[in-house]
């Protein structure tokens, strides 16, 4: 008789059974970690043998060294926000507004919708310095400006990719093609597990009525076991797919049916001795708990009015503000990685919603307030020390007017891979700092350039993971998120 099956047979109640088998499963997973705690592919429970039923892939695991942050809230601004109108203030660009963009900058470079000699475009937003740190913010971000001293702003981000899909793939999976790589959130839950067993370890929300450009691959597990893919939660209907029992089946009937199911499965376990049967019984029990825990967690009606007001959240609405509040509620319950994709930051000047004057100010209202509220809320609850908040788009926008809209009334910018701004905040980071700088036109970094692989290395580092050692063996090669590059941005570490 298999020891796990013995547990079943000797347990008198379901609760005993679950407690004991969870411990047994946990020990199975633990024995698969190697001695020094490094996490080569073959040492994680699920990766040890892909044919396995994974006993408990989300068992919390120690990283390579002591973590500075336990959880991540990643705010993905899909489309590429115009950083020169938000963070990276370039008075010289304003002064030279309307001049030809120097050919030395554009020569030999390809842009998505611009060719020939475009005109330089200074920002129309008013900029000011804020906080003790004196960081620059445009007037479009009043709430973020007010918490300037919490943020670590990076003005020297660059990438190789000038199309949305490839740029998002590079940022979120470490590789600019959809070639079966795993996403950042998947790597993190693979490396660390999750603290909450009744909720998925990696949860994704999408606002703005559109998928991000990288599609589901942005939170896919690629070559990692599929348990590590992000679980996309919906803002209407069941937040997690198929959470609700069928119409007409109440909780009592569901419980009774699961009891019968567990008993029949136990008979089978007795007959065959297959450990996987025991695992399946445990997974059904976890599903049952999720059925009550998830809706409860997702119910923002439970929040007091002043919290809803601070975020600008409205229960039932499919908004980014609601998702920010949900992110806090999830992290509060130990969810490892929450990622919010917000569509609609592609400011080409092709319509009134995507131009860099009033359109940008209006667009920022639905982002600036909830993000600032989220950071304040985390801080007030003492969660900011353990939680890393990351805000970024997939690339920046050009210091010149976009080619298609150059003669129109609306001002817009093309995709710009060579410079971008982003910010992070929370666990293990310096607060109130601005890192790196671009040249006087905001074209490219002149100091401390940061590539997506550096950003990924830094996020993993803050979580206690060494990006060169967090590997997974696939097709005869040890793959890592940062491919063959990536440097931790030590300047930003507190």
């Amino acid at each position: 008789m298999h020891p796990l099956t013995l547990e079943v047979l000797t347990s008198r109640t379901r609760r005993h059974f679950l407690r004991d088998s969870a411990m047994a499963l946990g020990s199975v997973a633990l024995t698969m970690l190697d001695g020094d705690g490094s996490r080569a592919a073959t040492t994680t429970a699920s990766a040890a043998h892909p044919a396995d039923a994974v006993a408990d892939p989300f068992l919390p695991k120690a990283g390579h060294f002591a973590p500075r942050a336990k959880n991540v809230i990643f705010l993905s601004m899909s489309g590429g926000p115009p950083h020169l109108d938000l963070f990276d203030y370039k008075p010289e660009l304003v002064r030279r507004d309307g001049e030809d963009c120097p050919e030395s900058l554009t020569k030999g470079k390809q842009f998505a919708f611009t060719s020939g000699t475009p005109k330089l475009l200074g920002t129309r937003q008013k900029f000011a310095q804020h906080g003790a740190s004196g960081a620059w913010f445009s007037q479009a971000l009043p709430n973020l400006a007010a918490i300037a001293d919490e943020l670590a702003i990076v003005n020297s981000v660059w990438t190789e990719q000038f199309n949305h899909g490839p740029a998002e793939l590079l940022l979120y999976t470490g590789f600019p093609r959809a070639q079966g790589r795993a996403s950042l959130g998947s790597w993190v839950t693979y490396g660390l597990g999750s603290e909450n067993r009744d909720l998925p370890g990696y949860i994704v929300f999408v606002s703005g009525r559109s998928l991000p450009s990288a599609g589901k691959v942005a939170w896919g597990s690629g070559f990692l076991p599929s348990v590590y893919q992000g679980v996309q939660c919906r803002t209407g209907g069941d937040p997690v797919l198929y959470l609700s029992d069928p119409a007409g089946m109440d909780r009592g009937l569901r419980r009774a049916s699961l009891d019968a199911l567990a008993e029949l499965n136990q008979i089978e376990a007795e007959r065959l001795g297959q450990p996987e049967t025991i695992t399946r019984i445990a997974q059904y029990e976890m599903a049952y708990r999720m059925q009550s825990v998830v809706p409860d967690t997702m119910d923002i009606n439970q929040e007091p009015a002043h919290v809803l007001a601070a975020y600008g959240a409205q229960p039932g609405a499919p908004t980014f503000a609601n998702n920010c509040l949900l992110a806090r509620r999830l992290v509060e319950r130990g969810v490892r990685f929450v990622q919010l994709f917000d569509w609609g930051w592609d400011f080409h000047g092709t319509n009134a919603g995507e131009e860099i004057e009033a359109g940008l100010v209006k667009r920022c209202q639905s982002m600036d307030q909830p993000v600032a509220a989220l950071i304040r809320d985390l801080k007030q609850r003492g969660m900011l020390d353990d939680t890393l908040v990351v805000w970024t788009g997939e690339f920046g926008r050009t210091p010149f007017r976009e080619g298609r809209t150059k003669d129109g009334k609306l001002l817009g910018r093309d995709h710009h891979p060579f410079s971008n701004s982003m910010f992070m905040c929370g666990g293990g980071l310096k607060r109130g700092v601005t890192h790196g700088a671009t040249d006087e036109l905001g074209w490219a970094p002149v100091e401390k350039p940061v590539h997506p692989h550096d950003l990924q290395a830094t996020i993993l580092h803050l979580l206690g993971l060494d990006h060169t050692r967090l590997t997974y063996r696939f097709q005869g090669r040890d793959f890592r998120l940062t491919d063959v590059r990536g440097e931790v941005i030590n300047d930003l570490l507190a």
Partner: protein
Amino acid sequence: MRYWHKAIAWAIASVGRLLAPLLLLSMTQFAPATVLAADRPAVDYLRDVRPILARNCFQCHGADDAARQAGLRLDELEPAIAKLESGQRAIVPGEPTQSELIARLTASDPDVAMPPRETGKQLAAAEVDTLRNWIAAGAPYAKHWAYVKPVRPPLATVSDAAWPAGAIDHFVLARLEAEGLKPSSPADRATWLRRASLDLTGLPPTPEEVAAFVDDTRPDAFELTVDRLLASPAYGERWTALWLDQARYADSQGYAPDGPRTIWRWRDWVVEALNANMPYDQFTIEQLAGDLLPTPSPAQVLATGFHRNTQLNTEGGVNLEEFRHAAVVDRVNTTFAVWMGTTLACAQCHNHKYDPLSQREYYQVFSIFNNTDDFNTDEPTVQTAVVGSDAEFATAQAEVAAAQTVYDELTRQRDAAQAEWEKNAAAYDKPPKEIVEILAIAAADRNGKQKDQLADFHRGLSEPWKAADKRLSTAKQQYDQVATSVPIMRDGTPRNSFVSIRGEFLSPGEPVTPGVPAAFHPAPADVKLDRLALARWLVDAENPLTARVAVNRLWQELFGTGLVETAEEFGTQGDPPSHPELLDWLAVEYRDGGWDTKRLLKLLVTSATYRQASQVTPELAARDPHNRLLARGPRTRLSAEMVRDQALAISGLLSTKMYGSPVQPPQPEFGLAAAFGSSTDWKPSEGADRHRRALYTRWRRNLPYPSLVAFDAPERNVCSLRRMRTNTPLQALVTLNDPVFVECAQALARRVLTEATADDAARATRALNLAVGREATPREVARLVSLVALARETLAADPTKANALATDPLGPLPEGVSAVDAAAWTVVANVVLNLDETLSKP
């Protein structure tokens, strides 16, 4: 144990007294677990030496010319024993003390010590000893096993000659006997039939099929049953699903817009080819190069859709050449992964570090694929008859052509008369207001739309023209019923190809001409090396990998894990086979037996190995948790497709309709569009199309069907040769609550209520029998009877709930079935469909 005494004697003799204590220590530690080492030499290059060298040395002293340091190459004998620039020799066979390799590995001076300290690599003392022993034994090198053409090994000798049913079992049993294990007893007939039915057709047997087989006294009952299963059209559907993973088939283009792609007729070609048992060599040639065959048939051209499943990026402002290049790269990588289990992709950016594959060779293969016309769009396509409509297609095509000719002529005549007509049009033909308005505009000033509108009105005044127009539109409609388009491979003007420096398409390096990697057999010198020649090279009898990789994948499907676990990697970085002789025997049998897939599958499922029961003792589970030794039957969770198809089959809802445009079973709304793309609205299919096999479910790369993804279906962006099998709470939610599965439970409830009328026990028995194909035990029946009693009592108190549970979403109840009964049995059916046993191959 005799082997160990000999090994120690040998080790002490060769290495000297100093090392003896160490070796004794390792013997006491490892001897009990290493019984299988019998007959193997003490130090085996491939098993013991090469991994150490590969891990620590090959990065700078391996096959990669560009990365080589100090002119030293350690992965082949000749350069490794040659005199170096320094005058030393890295390896002096038989003389470890004179070998510079050992001196460097053991040096304490950091300036000469190897590996360089900054690499962070250092060999353990035992590893140095292994190398020392190997050099002492003469430094025998060997070629990586997978790069040597397989030859048919002699059958392994076994003690229990009665057990083997065929050659396969000899190899399996020999290994078990060497391990001191015994095979399990055979599974009962019902279990075997469920296992074989699921494996061969993807569907469970009906209780009637089980009963007939259990009572079948014919001596060749197993063979006849396998023949029946292999002849079922469901066979092709089941195995096509697997091929689609490798072909990265999807009904959308990928990347941000993820636009729709019409390529399902290629999928149907695969179903037809597999059902017809097309030999694997022909299957290969037609898909890679059907268009290049002499006078190719339409089906052979259609087959080349295989490599048109690559992704497109239609996002605004993309560099088309970048994504054309990416598609060619994907074709190279996919071809070598699927047919040769070789990760050529490593050599895309640099010479392979571990296997003898250079970057230059990579781009030589690239140049073979670099000549097709497609340019980041689905074109070129061909119009093709849907399955079974070749004659209708030809007729419809001819009718469209004929109708078009008449239409064109009449249109020409009418248009020639238009100017004359316009003069008096208003007077005679009472045109509607908008035509009057257009007539008022001078002909030269009318815009395109106005011109068309007027011409159409004028043409429509003619009865013969109207008849011709009607005939043409009818002909086109009929044509559309029997035709579809499919993207195909078509060579255009040959392109010059270059090594892409660091794999970047904008950095062309040295020019290359077509070629195959030199580590393998040469391509014929007298034939132009195009896709056709490459395809023939892949299935050439000299190819060491193609047959092994193919049989390994079949084995993986049936036994849960391949004989080579890393099905996608047979190179030096892959896992060695668990049963090397068996793999080679199967490969030769397949290759020399005409690449006959059905025949090979029949050998596998009728083997004694496959027929074993899957009961496992704690000792065996601990000793061999993944059943690599095969001392028990192969029990695994069902694939994503089988989970769906089986639920539909058990409940009686399954549509057996084959082929055609993909369908949309119900799925929840996400309220999201694809980025820059059309809406991702998912209009659920109607009628029988709601209940088609998973194979026909529309596959969107950016938002794949969630219930398939939950059960580990891949995204299909790139080729996938092996699916993981996970076990998660999200899977439980799918089979408990997805309306598709609720509908199945409702249908199963109605089925048992009408098929088993005696009492609840009879109904419970029937439900279990339908689901798992065996007779239920009294204990199981009693448990379900008590559940139905409880459910009936609860639901009787609330007719609204009972009605919802019985009918939403399946619909109104049949005559004579009460809502409370149907709902209570829906609860039971839901349990039955979620049993671990139901979700598993037994």
